């Protein structure tokens, strides 16, 4: 019953109005009742109005037939955001037991041109197919992400597939590949965190932490201006600040970046956060900050935290008010070593 690739485009070009199709001659379409004073009326195109009027007719009479099924396809192609159409289509599928694999293919085609509204329907079909669908669903989201590696809906669907149906085996590798293609892809970093913390096949965050820290530091050194790995690094120590300030690699990467004297904003803010949580910086840090020679630095503040804030006010001017505020919140301590 279901059609092949490209059928939807063909339909658009050759569409015969429903009123002229013999198989629909017994149906009275139900026009939209906009009432006497409609607000924000839409100037619908005729084919849209007509399709929806016929849809309303079969929806109202709850006619779960193959012609209704075909009509939901036309309505979805015109208006994939209409969840009542998707819902009725599901009801028809349950009644007629139409092919679920064909359905996945159909949703896949809709998803390509409209990346937002297919999720719930796809999830429903996949649930019916069970764990057998896992490879297909991972493939599907992979395809969507190859079109847009940051597609929020595709990522959230992929996370659902992993948690509901499994398939974790290659996920860390997949994140690795995406990060290799674009180290700035924050969605891929987020997925990495998701896998590291939730995969039943890995040891959990603490077991994975060491290797993840090393990976992240490499990424930082490659592009210190990239916010994502800095956030990820902090995230690896979520709820464990003590370990975070005591891991010498953290402060060390800050120092390394500072020494290059370029792209050091995140290095500075991370150092500031470390200090605020009790990290006691050695003299090398002070020297590295001195060496930045930022304009308007004047004599460097004896309190390293304050000194860092002053530099940030200068080099991250968009957030100048924030750095001033951070400075005002610093505990009044004696100067650090």
């Amino acid at each position, binding site marked *: 019953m279901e059609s092949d690739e490209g059928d939807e485009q063909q339909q658009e070009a050759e569409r015969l109005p429903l009123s002229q199709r013999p198989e629909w001659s017994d149906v009275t379409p*139900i026009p939209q009742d906009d009432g006497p004073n409609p607000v924000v009326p839409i100037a*619908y195109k005729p084919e849209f109005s007509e399709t929806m009027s016929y849809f309303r007719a079969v929806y109202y009479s709850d006619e779960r037939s193959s012609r209704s099924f075909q009509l939901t396809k036309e309505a979805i192609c015109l208006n994939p955001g209409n*969840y009542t159409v998707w819902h009725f289509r599901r009801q028809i599928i349950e009644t007629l037991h139409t092919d679920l694999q064909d359905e996945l293919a159909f949703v896949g085609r809709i998803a390509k041109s409209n990346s937002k509204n297919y999720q719930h329907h796809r999830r429903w079909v996949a649930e019916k197919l069970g764990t057998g669908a896992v490879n297909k669903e991972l493939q599907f989201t992979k395809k969507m992400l190859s079109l847009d590696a940051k597609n929020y809906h595709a*990522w959230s669907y992929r996370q659902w597939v992993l948690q509901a149906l499994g398939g974790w085996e290659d996920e860390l590798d997949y994140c690795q590949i995406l990060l290799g293609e674009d180290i700035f892809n924050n969605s891929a970093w*987020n997925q990495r965190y998701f896998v590291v913390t939730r995969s039943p096949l890995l040891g959990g965050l603490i077991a994975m932490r060491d290797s993840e820290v090393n990976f992240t530091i490499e990424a930082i050194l490659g592009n210190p201006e990239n916010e994502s790995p800095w956030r990820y690094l902090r995230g690896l120590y979520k709820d464990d600040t003590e370990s975070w300030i005591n891991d010498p690699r953290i402060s060390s990467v800050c120092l390394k970046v500072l020494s290059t004297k370029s792209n050091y904003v995140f290095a500075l803010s991370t150092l500031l956060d470390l200090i605020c949580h009790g990290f006691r910086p050695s003299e090398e840090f002070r020297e590295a900050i001195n060496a930045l020679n930022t304009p308007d630095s004047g004599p460097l503040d004896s309190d390293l935290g304050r000194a860092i804030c002053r530099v940030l006010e200068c080099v991250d001017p968009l957030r100048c008010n924030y750095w001033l505020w951070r400075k005002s919140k610093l505990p009044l301590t004696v100067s650090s070593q």
Partner: protein
Amino acid sequence: MEPATENEWDRLSSSSSDGEEQAASDGSSSQFNRQQHVAFLMMMYESLPHHYQYQEINRITLAHFAISGLCLLGALDRVDKDAVSDWVLSLKAHPSNKADLTNGEFYGFHGSPSSQLHPDDNGVLMHNGSNLASTYCALAILKAVGYNFANIDSKSILTSMRNLQQHDGSFMPIHFGAEKDLRFVYCAAAICFLLEDWSGMDRERAKAYILNCQSYDGGFGLTPGSESHGGGTYCAVASLRLMGFIEDNVLSKNMSSSIIDLPLLLSWCLQRQAADGGFQGRANKPSDTCYAFWIGSVLRMLGGYNLIDKEALRGFLLTCQSQYGGFGKCPGDLPDLYHSFYGYTAFSLLEEPGLNPLCAELGMTEFSALGI
């Protein structure tokens, strides 16, 4: 009001809220063009071009943008308020009897007449397409036009709303299932707040769900585990504020007692202001007009709005302003209703003269929220 030709509509109006980039003349100027924006909204209010048919099921959302937008611009005198409230009320789903309220369905407002079929011969509403998002928009519009809320059947809304809350605290928007995420938790919280009655939801469970959505980087994703996102962060913080779990101006108080990681959230929000002055919705993504509201509001709600660079933001927003009125998603884009509304809210947060003050938690003017 009829367009001269179909082509003129195509030229003047936008595509869907995804904001297709087209070769548009640079609409930027050094000023917020209030007059042009009012004209744009009135044009949309009177008739939306056919591109909007894709958002047909959520027409009430488009109505909210137009009407609440006019309210923000202080131009609501141009609409027939009674006609508006009549239209909104006509979209209410009515239970045929009391027992219906626990049958699993939600009896709120529909998004448009298209999904609203009349009850059958026995008066039973067989096809109930009413949902949380439309209900929030309906109430927002009714507030804007000053409708007396005592006349709303709150009980049917609140009692049946409980059917939509899930075990983990999240909400479905509609009884026959759909995505469950923070957007609908927000709608539920806003509805309870506007109806001044929290019996519609279990606040503690909702709070637990929200906390699970805070990402490792301080922002909130739309679901637990998903990437932190401006819209998700707004829904999380606004919901917690409305439910009373975050106090006023919390940044000036004891941050460590907060139920969320406040310093990390603050850092994440402020980092969303990009070099072009605009706000991005996620790290390493382009700036977009609407995040000036989503993220800006979070900062306002926490008491940290003054920490941003307002001049830089204003400069960015003006490059997204269309010479025909309205705002597009990115600089030079044609305007659409969604980005226009959020552009106006953003300018209200910036305290632009001529705009009414905004209630960040509710996404409407302070006056509407207070019932003035």
